[in-house]
């Protein structure tokens, strides 16, 4: 009855861990599906979305905010997927995109660089230098991406509940630890935590819709009461009046243009 996010570097055995945890607990295992959902929901070519959420923002992205938009779409699709609970998610930035939800168990799987390189060499049939360069570049890209969009370093262990180094611990050990942790009381979904999850799903859906309409906003939802933090824009009222029919559960809307967003706003 919980949500497990597994953050991993490439070739760190994270995918294997995630799949085994899901199997053992009888949970759904999610990763790429979220991209497909987002691309379906917001009519964006999958490849564009993958590129957007994988690569760190370019100068152009930062000016135009398009990266933010893609992340908003992605977050909305993710929140929608995981709000039913019993999910292991091992895609991008789950621990950051689902922040503030009490019953999310945030796990980071790390492995030694050398081990990762040898796995990559074996799998992709590459030479050592090639594999090392690609992994290093990939790590750097992720670091920049996370830093630019969320202002944090993905390697900081403070972001996670559990960091497991696959070295002396095997994949099966990691699976056992995670399953044990997931069964702890504090990671079980409660009415309160489910409500927060629903609020996050709603807020991210509304944010994605507004960003689609080119509004630069932060959104907070509390029991369906939305607070939209926006820079002065007269069209916002109008846009909010015409929320799409499939966004439901909105009870009240407050727009604030003069204060900085609440820390829980997305």
């Amino acid at each position, binding site marked *: 009855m919980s949500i497990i996010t597994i953050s991993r570097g490439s070739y760190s055995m994270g995918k294997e861990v995630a799949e085994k945890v899901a199997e053992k607990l009888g949970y759904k295992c999610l990763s790429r599906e979220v991209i497909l959902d987002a691309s379906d929901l917001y009519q964006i070519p999958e490849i564009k979305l993958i590129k957007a959420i994988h690569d760190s923002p370019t100068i152009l992205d930062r000016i135009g905010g398009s990266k933010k938009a893609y992340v908003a779409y992605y977050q909305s699709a993710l929140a929608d997927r995981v709000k039913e609970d019993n999910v292991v998610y091992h895609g991008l930035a789950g621990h950051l995109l689902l922040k503030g939800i009490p019953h999310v168990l945030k796990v980071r799987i790390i492995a030694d660089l050398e081990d990762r390189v040898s796995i990559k060499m074996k799998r992709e049939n590459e030479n050592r230098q090639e594999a090392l360069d690609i992994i290093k570049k990939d790590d750097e890209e992720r670091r920049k991406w996370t830093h630019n969009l969320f202002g944090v370093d993905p390697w900081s262990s403070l972001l996670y509940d559990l960091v497991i180094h696959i070295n002396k611990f095997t994949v099966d050990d990691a699976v056992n630890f995670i399953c044990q942790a997931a069964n702890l009381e504090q990671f079980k979904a*409660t*009415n*309160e935590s489910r409500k927060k999850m629903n609020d996050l799903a709603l807020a991210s859906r509304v944010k994605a819709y507004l960003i689609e309409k080119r509004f630069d906003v932060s959104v907070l939802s*509390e*029991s369906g*009461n939305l*607070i939209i933090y926006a820079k002065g824009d007269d069209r916002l009222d109008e846009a909010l009046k015409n929320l799409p029919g499939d966004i439901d559960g909105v*009870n*009240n809307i*407050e*727009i*604030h*243009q*003069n*204060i900085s967003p*609440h820390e829980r706003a997305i």
Partner: protein
Amino acid sequence: MDNLTPEMILVISMIAVAVFLFITEWIRLDVVAILMMVTLPLLHLVTPAEAISGLSSNAVVSIIAVIIIGAGLDKTGLINKLVKPILKIAGKSQSNIIIAISLAIAVISSFMQNIGAAALFLPAIQRISKSFKIPISRLLMPIGFSAILGGTITLVGSSPLILLNDLIPSNLEPFSLFDVTPIGLSLVVCGIIYFIVFGRFVLPQGSKNIQDDLEIVSPSNDNPVDEIGTPYELRTPDNFTDYREPVRVDDLRKNYLVNVVALTEPPDTKIKSPSGDTVIRAKVDLVVFGKKKDVERMAQMEDMVLKDKLETFVNDIDSQTSGTVEAVVAPRSSFAGKNINSVNLQEKYSVTPMAIYRHGEIYRSHIDELPLQVGDAILMHGTWRRLKMLNTEGDLLFTTPVDVELMRPEKAALAGIWLAVSLTMILVFKIQLSICLLTGAVGMVITRVLNIDEAYESVDWRTVFLLAGLIPLGAATEKTGTAAWIAKTVLSATGQVEPIVLMSIIAVLSTVFTLVISNVGATVLLVPLVVNMASEVGADPRMAALIVGIATSNSFLLPTHQVNALYMGPGRYRSVDFMKAGGIMSILFIFVMIGSIYVFYGF
């Protein structure tokens, strides 16, 4: 015919001066009246004793007493209880309110003194004006006129009609109680229709003064009352706390944007403005402010029972004991930089903050975490007593006046008893009106329904002196024979005319007389004259007398009628307002009266 004496000329000049000053308003009306009180004895037109006799007259003392009784009834909330059913029918529309109260006051004044009915309704109308944000000037005049018109519905509705049977010759058939009813009802209906249709053209627009007319002011265009909603009472069921996490006052605000302003604590304690972490227990009643849809959602989600109306808290959450006000964080206030939580309004002052306004934006959720800035307006609910305390601390500047008088609902029964005593003395024992009403007023003071200072403060001295000063002018007009001379001159000048013309002349003459001399004086003077005149031209003398009796209530042109004098101050009317709205009313009055007498009785 008698000759015009110098005294008569002097009296006519004095009337002319008074009317001239009334019209130009170079000096205030009550001062004009006092001027008359002083000048008339100096000119030897009345004796000094007569000049000041107005101050001790039955009418003036009755007015003073009835105002005090009205204040007592208002202070205990009885007036509100009386008005509530009327408002329930009327809703919030200005027209409907005018119709409902006008009909009510007309019916009441058909059986008691018009001024009494008018004085009793005054505080209620003031409250209605405040809470529905209708300018008081739009309400008082139509309702005051209805009180006067209502006096013509029965033969005991006004003094001239009470006198009528004593004044007509014994060979004429006396009038019965309801003989005048069709005419009186036509007049009341005409008056109401007139104000509903033409009110907006003839009545003053009313002051836009924030302090007087608005209960809450907002920096934005939104009506804050719409934002914070209205009070609803709910009850938690027996199993409310079973198998669930505790529900706190704060949770309800965060989840449903409703503010709990009061709740019961078993067995029988009532907690006002509970703090945010107060846990809501099973089997308690609570009052929340919120929008209907939010309150309904909460009731459904939290399994609470939403009541149709306030029950347990009906006397705690009404405008007499508590209210919603707006207060701005003052410069150098100790509140600046703190959030509402740390200011601790609920626990320290027992008031509930409900929303914050900043730069035209309203904050309803998360207000407890928002650091306050100078200039933020906080909307809050509390008892007047508590709000007053907070006001004196000086951290907040109240944009809504909180010097609301403290109510004494516990004295309602006593106030009702004293009103009943007065009415019984009037209706059953037929004791003089002023003494009956003074009994009630003194009774209220002795039983502490209101204290003597409050009683003094409630009396509007403008009204008292306006009436007291005009009484010697009427006396002089009668005493010097001026009134009789005018009446005889006018009537003899008419000669042989059609009955309907004579009746119209009688109506106009009565109307003019009643403006200057008292309606009783005008009736006493005119009835014997018109009965003879009517007989001479072959018209029905009874109807001629009836016209005098009714037309002496046609006193709308100047604020000299007691009811108009009473309403002039609170309504902030000027003479010109009465001339405009009352002038048309007077003409309509004559037409409708003559018309309905013709239709129902013939001449």
